């Protein structure tokens, strides 16, 4: 089969670097690494740099550039070797039970010293595991299930392997949710997904958003615009907002730059004239080339600001999405005039009360049709043969949404 050669080939040479490709690891990408114990870490991949993953040690970052996301790699020396993904072990329970196993028995005759010696002599992790299993006096008595658990435990301990995690919206949201839940105001992926569906985010659409969730909402909208449409955000800082979650998405330029513009709560006020838009006395007496460059830059910035303001005030946006730390009614009163008829208003809060108060006020206002408050519920399962059940620990709440249609 000819396509076997290209199919799944991960060699940089066969995957021409393409700015619009988000499935391969590019120089400068922030890559999420999932270790065998489930932990996920993120690091930037720079040419000629080294990536260090704690106990796993470090390797040459060049090895990752051009590789597909989603693969599992083993660290061998300073380089990487692609290894097959883990299948779900098809473990059938046999007659063996834990009945005959005496917990107190010396079941592991291979001492720490012996293991160290094996490691020093360059024996592969798989060999060590095999040796341990051989030495494990009761191994044959264990159930398939506990054998499996035993092997996994050993494997995670000795195998220097990790999986790169594709920066999809789902994966990035989950990463931040576990890493720093408060910085994304506990906005969980199910709730975020509902927001972007309810707001009818589609390529070519124009939307208004308030994102005080580190750019998670902005990332979701940009992802669903796919480089076509407009997103205007209003923030509370005087320079363009940082939106750190966006960094983790590794968006190519064309998905962000022509699409996203930002104003702040001062510059978004119609009655206020931002200083940058006042006549500039310094403009009149240009002294040097350097001065001219600076002035031109200033002019460009103020033009951008003027056009973003113009765009907001003309209005007609198709949707308004809010995940903010500010009082929602104050936001709504300011921005509702700029969204068109039939547009969706979607407001997120990690707490119920602000939304119920808001709903209680909105339902008296005929410009909002059917404001409704909902709570998101999500349950994940462990799926293993004979052992399928909901995960024992889970997230308490995915937050609340208020949705209404502008009349």
């Amino acid at each position: 089969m000819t396509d076997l050669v290209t199919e799944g080939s991960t060699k940089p040479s066969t995957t021409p670097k393409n700015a619009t490709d988000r499935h391969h690891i590019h120089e400068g990408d922030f890559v999420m690494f999932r270790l065998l114990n489930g932990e996920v870490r993120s690091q930037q991949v720079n040419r000629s740099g080294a990536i260090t993953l704690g106990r796993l040690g470090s390797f040459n970052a060049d090895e990752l550039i051009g590789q597909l996301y989603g693969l599992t790699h083993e660290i061998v020396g300073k380089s990487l070797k692609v290894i097959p993904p883990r299948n779900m072990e098809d473990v059938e329970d046999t007659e063996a039970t834990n009945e005959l196993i005496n917990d107190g028995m010396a079941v592991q005759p291979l001492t720490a010293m012996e293991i160290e010696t094996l490691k020093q002599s360059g024996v592969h992790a798989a060999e060590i595991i095999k040796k341990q299993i051989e030495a494990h006096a009761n191994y044959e008595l264990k159930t398939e299930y506990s054998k499996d658990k035993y092997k996994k435990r050993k494997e995670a301990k000795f195998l220097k392997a990790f999986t790169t995690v594709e920066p999809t919206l789902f994966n990035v949201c989950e990463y931040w949710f576990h890493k720093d839940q408060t910085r994304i105001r506990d906005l969980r992926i199910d709730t975020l997904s509902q927001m972007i569906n309810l707001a009818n985010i589609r390529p070519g659409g124009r939307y208004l958003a308030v994102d005080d969730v580190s750019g998670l909402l902005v990332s979701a909208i940009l992802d669903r615009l796919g480089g076509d449409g407009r997103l205007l955000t209003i923030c509370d800082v005087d320079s363009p907002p940082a939106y750190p979650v966006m960094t983790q998405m590794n968006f190519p330029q064309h998905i962000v730059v022509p699409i996203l513009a930002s104003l702040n709560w001062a510059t978004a006020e119609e009655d206020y004239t931002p200083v940058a838009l006042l006549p500039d006395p310094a403009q009149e007496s240009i002294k040097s080339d350097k001065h001219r460059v600076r002035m031109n830059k200033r002019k460009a910035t103020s033009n951008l600001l003027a056009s973003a303001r113009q765009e907001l005030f003309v209005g007609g946006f198709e949707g308004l999405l809010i995940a903010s730390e500010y009082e929602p009614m104050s936001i709504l009163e300011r921005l509702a005039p700029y969204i068109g008829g039939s547009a969706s208003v979607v407001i997120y809060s990690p707490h119920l009360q602000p939304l119920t108060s808001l709903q209680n006020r909105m339902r008296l206002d005929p410009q909002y049709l059917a404001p409704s408050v909902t709570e998101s519920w999500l349950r994940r399962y462990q799926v293993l043969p004979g052992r399928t059940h909901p995960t024992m620990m889970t997230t308490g709440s995915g937050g609340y949404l208020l949705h209404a249609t502008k009349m």
Partner: protein
Amino acid sequence: MWSSSNKIAAGDVVITWLTRDVIQPFVVTPGKDLNSRYGYYRHSDLIGQPYGSKIGSRNGKGFIHILRPTPELWTLALPHRTQILYLADIAFITSWLNIRPGSVVVEAGTGSGSFTHSITRTVGRNGKVFSYEFHEARAAKARDEFETHGMSDVVTLTHRNVCKDGFTVENVADAVFLDLPAPWDAIDHAKSALRKDRTARICCFSPCMEQVLRTVTSLNETGFTDITMYETLIRPHEVNQLPVLPSIAVASEKLKKSERKREDKRLRQIAQARAKHTEKRKRSDDEGADAEEDRMERKKTKTRNGTDEGEATTQNAWVSATTPDSLAGGDASTQVVSRVMPEVRGHTSFLTFAVLLPRVQASAPDIESALQRDRSDLSSGLSQCD
């Protein structure tokens, strides 16, 4: 897909919002009427009105809201030909499967097209949806609908049994979504539809746990990995503005009052009994003692009235003291409360997800290959790739 103009035009598909439970689509057709218990309207009255207008009926019997269709509204308004997917599941599946502009998605069965509309919007003009339905009439209906909604450039609907005959495409899909009674029979076919040059994803939507278990087994055997399962729901809340709850002081005062009332009554009865008794002797006794008793009775009543007024004051003071200032909307004697609606959806389906990773060539010239073989039979987590 649908109109993107501000104003309603003849031929547009619009959604009428009558109540939360009565949401209906129709095509604006001059000459046609709309008649319901919410009044009588002419389609031609709508033409030129902005989307999101509230329109009064011709016979003064009410009004309707006219909305621009979105997939989310469509899900609430569509004619049901089958069970359908709703927002919570659709949104979650779309994210997990990483469906976005430009994605190629394979879906079976089409059913009532609820899921199809949503993902067609999301993949946009540069994406593609291949949808399959084996029920002929349903397929025909859906095809018409997709045509009317301007989706035909993106959606290709095929009438076929995907479990028996598979899909019409190979190695192209970024994602496959199966909402079928026996998804395990289509998983092999799904694998061949999925692209092999990068991570591809699948979701099987099944209401029963038995289906999930068979699906999982089949996914695992077919070479899918990262198998996981979720359930998701949206719990709607009802919001009410209710009187602030009364303090127990109110109950206590009420009890005291009724206790006093009873006691008064008892005393009155005693007094009356005594009065009757006295009456009998009246003729013989003098009048002085009677007047004295009357005076005493009047005094008692006065004291009680005083207490009654006092009680009213106490209650008012309590209300203002315990009402949080922060309550938005409503005066100090009411509060805004919410609870999950009394009857809600408790289960839709289990969402089983998995990924299909590209086949990877063994990278290094293998001194390792012997060990590799070794490893795959000893640490079963790392089985040989196919």
